């Protein structure tokens, strides 16, 4: 089975001296291959935890997470990842950042003396340049270090870095949250275009409902679990008509209100 299957997943975190706090409670979610899913919810509701479960960085307390039909215990190439900060390796140029995945996958950690390395690296660089141009940057940008780029440019490189490996799933954790509104809109349009071209499944975590609605083909809202009253979150698969960046403001406002009214503010956590 392709796509992502989240079955009855719960996550507890130990809180020093206060027992366990349940963050997520009985989450069931099925994401088809090629979907663009937005996960939205208030700060602290467990959006990033859910992303880390899909990534394989964390294990659920109960239930299971399958990506392409397989449970994973460590992040790997199955899922590309674009975090909000620290997306790029600061010691490498932009081109080296993009080719890193290709290089390390083919040659392993110590590749300097491999005879086929120079030829393959030329091919990797050409491929990286193609991706760099596709994300709106040029060859001169490729020679720069990440700190010489703006925040928006850095995230463009991070997307190219992840997509060059053609991962079946791309996970984006508040990837545009630190950008100014103008740059953010540009990045949203870019990721939508790249999604249409690549057919990659994208899971996009954001606290911005408007962004979630404009990007996702489906919106999952994490909200208070009213049944358990323990402050944990459940996933609400909110059915909304598809809107785009050019949809009318009134329509967008109405849908934002619809989604936000479904996500009741989280109460103070209860510890057991």
């Amino acid at each position, binding site marked *: 089975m392709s796509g992502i299957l989240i079955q009855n997943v719960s996550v507890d975190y130990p809180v020093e001296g206060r027992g366990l706090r349940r963050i997520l409670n009985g989450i069931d979610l099925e994401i088809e291959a090629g979907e663009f899913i937005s996960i939205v919810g208030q700060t602290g509701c467990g959006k990033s935890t859910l992303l880390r479960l899909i*990534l394989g*960085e964390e294990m659920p307390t109960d239930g299971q997470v399958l990506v392409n039909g397989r449970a994973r215990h*460590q*992040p*790997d*190439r199955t*899922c*590309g*990842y674009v*975090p909000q*900060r*620290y*997306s790029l*390796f*600061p*010691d*490498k140029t932009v081109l080296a950042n993009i080719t*890193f*995945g290709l290089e*390390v*996958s083919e040659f*392993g*950690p*110590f590749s300097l003396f491999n005879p086929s390395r120079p030829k393959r690296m030329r091919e990797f660089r050409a491929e990286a340049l193609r991706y760099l141009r596709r994300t709106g940057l040029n060859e001169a940008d490729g020679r720069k*270090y*990440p*700190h*010489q780029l703006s925040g928006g440019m850095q995230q463009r490189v991070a997307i190219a*870095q*992840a997509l060059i*490996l053609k*991962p079946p799933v791309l996970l984006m954790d508040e990837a545009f949250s630190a950008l100014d509104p103008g740059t953010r809109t540009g990045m949203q349009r870019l990721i939508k275009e790249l999604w249409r071209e690549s057919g990659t499944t994208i899971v996009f975590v954001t606290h911005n409902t408007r962004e979630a609605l404009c990007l996702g083909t489906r919106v999952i809202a994490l909200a208070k679990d009213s049944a358990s009253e323990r402050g944990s979150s459940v996933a609400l698969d909110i059915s909304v008509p598809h809107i785009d960046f050019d949809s009318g403001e009134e329509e967008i406002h109405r849908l934002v209100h619809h989604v936000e009214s479904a996500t009741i503010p989280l109460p103070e956590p209860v510890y057991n």
Partner: protein
Amino acid sequence: MLWKDSAATSRRFIISVALLFPAVLIGLHMAMFPYVGAFFLRFFQFFDKIVALSLLPIIFIAFGIDELSKIMLIVIGVTPTIILDTFNLSKGVPSEQVVKAFTLGAGDFAIAYRIVFKQILPRVLNSIRLNLKAVMLFLFAGEMIASTDGLAYRIALLRRHMGMDTIIPYVLWVALLLFLVDLGMNLLNRKLHPWFRET
């Protein structure tokens, strides 16, 4: 005499600084591989608190009074600090970078050497640079007690004869040498890591 003493002290100094680099690798492995860290961390935290000069008699008995004992004094005095500093710097690399590297297909060794080590290297070099004075201090202690040549040996020897006309130039010469090494390492660090200065 000055050149002969400078050469003797420099030789010991260079060997001692070279021996600090394995310490960097130990610190890196302790941070990147939890079982290595679990095994060594407490030991080095305790080892770091031992006053190296208090071990001088034991070092002279165990390693004799020739070159090895002077170098061991420096190793015992400075390496735990470098190991623990490297450990902390490695742990300080954002977890996003490690997760990102995993998603790009890197394994544990690729992450340790190609992501974490490269990112901490300029800071480690800075740390070594700032510890050069401690290296020299331990080297001087060793030379003053058991040596037949070296800058500290000469200072200790002339002290008995109140030879200030030689001692003061020697002290200034040592300071100048250390200053130049510091400057050189700083320049090398900037040259090797052009990305570091501005981050």
